[in-house]
Structure formats: structure tokens, C-alpha cells
């Protein structure tokens, strides 16, 4: 690639004092173009996330209900005190944490098994890969309805199939959480298994063969050869799924509407802000939710000592 061919931008000086005129012209032109091309994306993302988040930060310092706009008043950190001392907040934290930990753990194992099958299968390989995309593509609300009606007393088959009589799944916390987590797992395992499959195909086959020749058991090969070589893929899959599960909203909304202590953090933010139009406390919940997400991301990235931008293929 010859640098001298590139014409300088019309509004740029032709030479630089340091004498390396063509190079820096080209670079400057490139920089300018790059910035112009990415500016719209920059602007949209900042306007719709950073600005409202800052707005939430301000709102969270006020006592402010939409039903009582005149009662708006600066109260400092009191909203945060109210939220953090409320058992509802902590119940939402524990609900969200339980769903997240259980679903991600199960999905990781199940997803790996799926990935392994898709890796090894010969007959009907594309069939299986197509089928696994269906849960991924389906609307979460629809999947929530499907499983809710399956477990529900009047409409479902679960109780009669497993001889549970008239056990009401949505009557108490643990069984409700079970169904919510179950639906979450059904819907999002494909995502994790496809990422793991992508990692799996990158493990050099020769390494496995070599280990086999050296007399390693299948179990040893899995732990010593396969898994370490797909660390990046596992890391990405777990991080993304964890943060995704932490924001869970659709499933509990459809299945229990938050009854029996099944309200998640996103749900709490939604209820405070939209249903109760309690924008002061609601914003405090929003900000706290944001902080928990940042904290989880931080722990992951530090904990795995992986530069995420590198994992994502950026060079």
C-alpha cells in the first residue's frame, strides 16, 4: 500500500513541520474519517444510556412521585437509605442471585454437553444445530407462557405426568423459582452451547490425540487438554450469561408477577418507576442495579485476569 497516493483532505494543510508530510496527512485523514464514521454510534449510545443514567442519578436524590409533582424535594441520599434498609430490596437481591447462580451453573454444564454432542455428531449435524437455535430465537415472554401453562394446575401436563396431584407450583417461593429458572435455562442454553462449540472447534485435535497416545483417560483429557484450551470461550459465555441472568425480568413477570418473593432486581426497578411512578426511590433502585452489574463485570474481568477486548477478538 503506497501512502503517497492518498490525497490529503481538502481542509488539511499539505505539510507538517516535522517533514513527514504524506504519512501524517494520510493518518489524519484516516483518523478524521474513522471518527466521522463512528460518531453516530457514539452519540446514540451515549445519549440513550449515559444521559438518562445521569438523570437517574439526579432524580435519586429527590423525593419525587409522578402523582405528586409539587412534592418534589431534595433529600440527598435518603432514597438510598430507604431502599437499602428495605427487606424488599434484599429479597430481590437474593432472588436474582439464586436464579443467576443456579441457571448459569446448570447452563454451563448442559451447554457444554450440547456443544460436545454437536461437535461429535455426524448424522443430522445441521439438524441439531438448527433445532438448538429455536429456543434462542423465541420470544422470552412466549417461552415464559409455555412453561407457565405447562406447570399450571388447570392447563398443564407436568403434574399429571409426574404424579404430583394438585401441587401448586406457583403457590410458594421455591417451586416458583424452580419454574422460572427452568424456563430461563431452556431459553438460553443454546447461546452458551454455541459459544462453547465455537471454543471447542478451536482446541487442536492433535493435542487430544497426543494425550490419548500418552494414556490419558477421557476425563483427564477433558480437564487437562480441552477445558484449558477453551478458557476464553468459557469466560465470555459465563460473563455474558451471568450479566444477562442478573437482569432477568420477562420470566418472573409472566410467571408469578413477583408473588411469593420472586421479584427480581429489574422487576423491582420497573415496579417502582412505572407501576408506582415513585421516581425518586425508583431511580435509586436503578442506580443500585447499575452498580451491581458494574461490580459483577469488574469481579469477572479481574478474577479471570482476562483482557475482555482481547477475548472478543479485538486486536
Amino acid at each position, binding site marked *: 500500500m503506497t501512502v503517497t497516493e492518498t490525497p490529503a483532505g481538502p481542509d488539511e494543510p499539505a505539510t507538517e513541520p516535522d517533514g513527514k508530510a504524506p504519512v501524517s496527512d494520510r*493518518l489524519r485523514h484516516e*483518523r*478524521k*474519517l*474513522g*471518527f466521522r464514521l463512528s460518531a453516530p*454510534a457514539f452519540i*446514540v*449510545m451515549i*445519549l440513550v*444510556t449515559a444521559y*438518562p*443514567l445521569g*438523570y*437517574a442519578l439526579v*432524580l435519586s436524590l429527590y423525593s419525587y412521585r*409522578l402523582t405528586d409533582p409539587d412534592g418534589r424535594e431534595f433529600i440527598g441520599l435518603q432514597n438510598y437509605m430507604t431502599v437499602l434498609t428495605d427487606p424488599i430490596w434484599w429479597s430481590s437481591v437474593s432472588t436474582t442471585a439464586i436464579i443467576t447462580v443456579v441457571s448459569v451453573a446448570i447452563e454451563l454444564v448442559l451447554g457444554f454437553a450440547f456443544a460436545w454432542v*454437536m461437535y461429535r455428531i*455426524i448424522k*443430522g*449435524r*445441521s439438524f*441439531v444445530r*438448527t*433445532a*438448538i*437455535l*429455536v429456543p*434462542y*430465537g*423465541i*420470544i422470552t*415472554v*412466549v417461552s415464559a*407462557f*409455555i412453561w407457565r*401453562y405447562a406447570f399450571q394446575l388447570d392447563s398443564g401436563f407436568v403434574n*399429571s405426568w409426574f404424579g404430583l396431584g394438585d401441587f401448586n407450583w406457583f403457590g410458594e417461593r421455591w417451586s416458583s423459582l424452580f419454574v422460572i429458572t427452568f424456563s430461563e435455562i431452556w431459553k438460553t442454553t443454546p447461546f452458551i452451547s*454455541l*459459544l462453547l462449540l*465455537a471454543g471447542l472447534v*478451536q482446541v487442536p485435535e492433535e493435542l487430544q490425540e497426543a494425550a490419548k497416545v500418552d494414556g490419558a483417560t477421557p476425563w483427564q483429557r477433558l480437564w487437562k487438554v480441552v477445558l484449558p484450551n477453551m478458557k*476464553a*470461550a468459557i469466560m465470555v459465555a459465563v460473563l455474558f450469561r451471568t*450479566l444477562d441472568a*442478573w437482569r432477568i*425480568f420477562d420470566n418472573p413477570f409472566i410467571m408469578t408477577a413477583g408473588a411469593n418473593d420472586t421479584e427480581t432486581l*429489574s*422487576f423491582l*426497578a420497573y415496579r*417502582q418507576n*412505572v407501576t408506582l411512578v415513585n*421516581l425518586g426511590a*425508583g*431511580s435509586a433502585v*436503578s442506580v443500585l442495579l447499575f452498580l451491581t*452489574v458494574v461490580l459483577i463485570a469488574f469481579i469477572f474481568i479481574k478474577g479471570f485476569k482476562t483482557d475482555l477486548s482481547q477475548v*472478543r*477478538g*479485538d486486536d
Partner: protein
Amino acid sequence: MGTKASNWWTFWGVLILAWAAFPLVWMASLAFKSPATFRDGDSGFFPSEWTWENFQTVFEDELFTSALRNSAGIAVIATLLSVIVAMFAAYAIARLEFRGKKLLLSMALGIAMFPQAALVGPLFNMWRGLGIYDTWIGLIIPYLTFALPLSIWTMSAFFRQIPWEMEQAAQVDGATAWQAFRKVIVPLAAPGVFTTGILTFFFCWNEFLLAASLTSTDRARTVPAALSFFTGASQFQSPVTAVMAASVVVTIPVVVLVLLFQRRIVAGLTAGAVKG
């Protein structure tokens, strides 16, 4: 080894197939149950009597048909916009050296992790102030924002694989810069752009939290939100079979897209996610 092992893998493959498809069979089977017999306790897995009645009900319901229109319109517009905006950004990332490149990528990553619920309150309030609460544009803007990170990452991963030297080679062979770009680069980039579009469409078609928070009437309410607020034609009628019929209708586009573009969707999901 050989056929015996291969048969085992096929067996496990069939299990995965069943795992993915079984809930859909259940959905369809509920959708075809007659509401009358369902109320009387038709709780078997398959309907004792098959009927199209539920589909009739949902298509006669203005709430559902308008939601279908809203969903399709909003998802298509948001997808187009986000693909165009992301395409410029991804081209710049894959091709150009500029300050802020790293920042753009990290920002996209940050927004991909952003809890949408944290925006529900502020957007709710701001959109009302701006007069775009409960409108298409009020949903398109946040959808665009949250679709952008995925689009930028996947598209720049696709764009990186394009051998850009070919463009120069074409120019050396006498093509103008524009011709070289159009004849060489565009065809190579098109599959990546298209794949990104499908994934973005899935995201917009699926989104629920913002749709439920930023709409209040059938003016802009999308299918997921409409489904969740659907209570049946009368309060005495259980909406189960109708909700499932509506679900079947909105699942069809997903299944069709999956069947047609299976390879591309897998490529898109994994491109940019894992180094390769």
C-alpha cells in the same frame, strides 16, 4: 469406534432436538384446544378436539393485530437503522486507525452489559416530557441503542476477515475507487451485514421490559407486551388457548428465519464472541 459410536452421538442429538422442539409442540397443542373443552378440564397434552377457533379469536382482536403491526414496524425500522449506523462504525474499526477506536469497542461492550431496567424510570419520565411516550419512535431509539453493541461487535468481526487488499488490486486493474468498493468489498461484506440484521431483528422482536414500560396503548405496544397484558375477551374466559395461538403466530417468523439462515445465525453469534 465407527458406526456404533456415531449412532450414540446421533441418539444424543435426537435428545437435543426433542429438548428444543418439545415446548413448541406443547404450545401448538394448547393453541389448537377448543376454549370450551379446555375450561371443562381438557388437560391432556394433546387436544381432545382440534380447532382453529383460537386463531380466529386473536386475529379478530384489535389489540393483537395492532401489536403485530407495531412489532413488525418497530423491529424492522430499528434493525435497519442500527445496521446502517453500526456498519459505518464497524467499517471504521476494521479498516481505519483512529483515536477512540478502543473506547468505542469498550463502550459497546459496556452497553451490552447495561441493565436496561436502570433506564426504565428516566426514559419513562423523559419520553413523557418529550411527547414520545407510547410512540414507535420512543421504542425505536432505545432498541437502536441496545442493538448497536451487538451489531458493532459482530459486524467488525466479519469485516476484519475481508481481505481489503483485493480492493487495491481491483484499482490497480483500472477500476475506480468506488467501483472497486462496490464490486469487491460490498459483496464480501453483505453476508456479515445481513447476519447482523437477523440477530438484531431477533433482539427487537423479543424485547419486553422497555416495551412494557414505554407503551400504554395499542398505539405502540409490541407483541411481547400485548401478550403479557392480554386477559382474554372477557374476564370469565381463560386466555390460555388464545395466548398460545398468538404465541404460535409470532413464533412462526422466528422459526422460518432460523430454518433459512441457520448457518449464518450460528456464524453471527460466535463471530466476535470468541477469538478466531
